[in-house]
C-alpha cells in the first residue's frame, strides 16, 4: 500500500463535497429522480459496506505476511517456471492500484529479476489480485469472475512473452539501466 501523497483531509474530501452539493441540487431541481437515486445510493452503500471490510482485512494481512524480499531472490534469469510462478504470486498478493506496481518493478529489475518475470508481475498485479477476485465473485458472479481469471492468466503470459519479443535484448538492457538510475 502506498503511503505517499497524503493530502490533508479537507482537500481530499473536496470532491465529495462538490459531488454531494451537486447531488442535493439535482434532487431539489428534479424531484422525480429523488426516490430512485436515494434508494440506489442506499442499496449501493449497503452492499459495499458489507463487502469491503473483510477485503481490506485480507489486504492488510497479505501486506504484513508476504515475504517480498525472499520471493524476489528467486526471480532471476534462468529461474524458469518457478521464478515466473513466484512473480505471479507476488503480483497477485499485492495491494493497491497498478501504478503502485511500477516502483516495485524497478526494485525487481535492480535485484536482477528477468524481464519476462517482471511483465508477469505487472500483469498479475493489474488483474489477478486475490481479495479482488473474491469481491468480483460476490459483485459480478462466480462465472464472470472465474472466466475472467482464467483468460487473464493466459493473457498475462502471452503479453509478457510478446513484450519480451517485441522489445528485444538491447531495449530491455536500456530499461534495466534506467531502473538502476531511478531513486
Amino acid at each position, binding site marked *: 500500500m502506498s503511503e505517499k501523497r497524503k493530502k490533508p483531509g479537507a482537500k481530499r474530501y473536496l470532491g465529495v463535497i462538490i459531488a454531494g452539493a451537486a447531488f442535493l441540487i439535482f434532487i431539489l431541481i428534479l424531484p422525480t429522480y429523488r426516490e430512485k437515486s436515494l434508494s440506489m445510493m442506499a442499496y449501493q452503500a449497503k452492499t459495499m459496506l458489507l463487502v469491503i471490510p473483510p477485503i481490506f*482485512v485480507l489486504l492488510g494481512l497479505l501486506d504484513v505476511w508476504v515475504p517480498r524480499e525472499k520471493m524476489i531472490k528467486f526471480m532471476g534469469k534462468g529461474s524458469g517456471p518457478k521464478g515466473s510462478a513466484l512473480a505471479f504470486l507476488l503480483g497477485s498478493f499485492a495491494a493497491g492500484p497498478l501504478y503502485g506496481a511500477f516502483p516495485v518493478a524497478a526494485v525487481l529489475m535492480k535485484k536482477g529479476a528477468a524481464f519476462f518475470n517482471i511483465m508477469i508481475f505487472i500483469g498479475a498485479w493489474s488483474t489477478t489480485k486475490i481479495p479482488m477476485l473474491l469481491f468480483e465473485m460476490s*459483485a*459480478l458472479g462466480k*462465472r464472470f469472475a472465474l472466466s475472467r481469471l482464467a483468460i487473464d492468466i493466459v493473457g498475462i503470459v502471452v503479453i509478457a512473452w510478446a513484450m519480451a519479443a517485441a522489445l528485444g535484448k538491447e*531495449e530491455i538492457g536500456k530499461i534495466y539501466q534506467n531502473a538502476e538510475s531511478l531513486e
Partner: protein
Amino acid sequence: MDTIILYLAAGIGLGFSFFKDRKKTKSALQKALKAFEGILPQFLVVLILVAITLSVLDTATISRFLGTKSGIFGILAASVVGAITLIPGFIAFPAAAALLQNGAGSTQIAAFVSSLMMVGVVTLPMEMKHFGKRAAFIRNAFAFVFSLIAALFVGWVVGL
C-alpha cells in the same frame, strides 16, 4: 452467499495471524483501516455519481448503449472508458454490478472491467518513467487488445 466466504477467509486469516504474531496482526489491521480511509473520498464520489447516473438513465437507455445488442460499439466504448478511468476495483465492481442489473451486457461490462485493470492511460507517464516510452506504449496497446478478447471470452462463458 459469497460475502460469507469473504468473511470466513478474513476471519480465518485473522485468527491464524493473531495466533502467530499479535504485533503483525495489529499492524495489518491498521494498514487495512488506513487503506479504507484512503479510498473513502473516491468511494463516496463514485457512490453519488452512480446514484445520479442510474436514476436518470433507465434500463432501456443503458441497454441501448451497453446492452447485449449494443454489440461491438458497446464493447469498444466500455473498454475505452475503462482504459481512461482510474477507479479501484472495489469501487468499480459494485458500479459494474449495478449496470449489469440495469440492462448492460456481460461482454460490455467485462470489457470495461478488464481494460480498467490492465490499461492505464492516466498513469502512462508513470509507466514511461519506469519502462521507457516504447515499452509502456506497447504494453498498454497489448493490454487493450487483450481486454477485448477477454471480454468476448467472459461474455461467451457467462452466456453459456
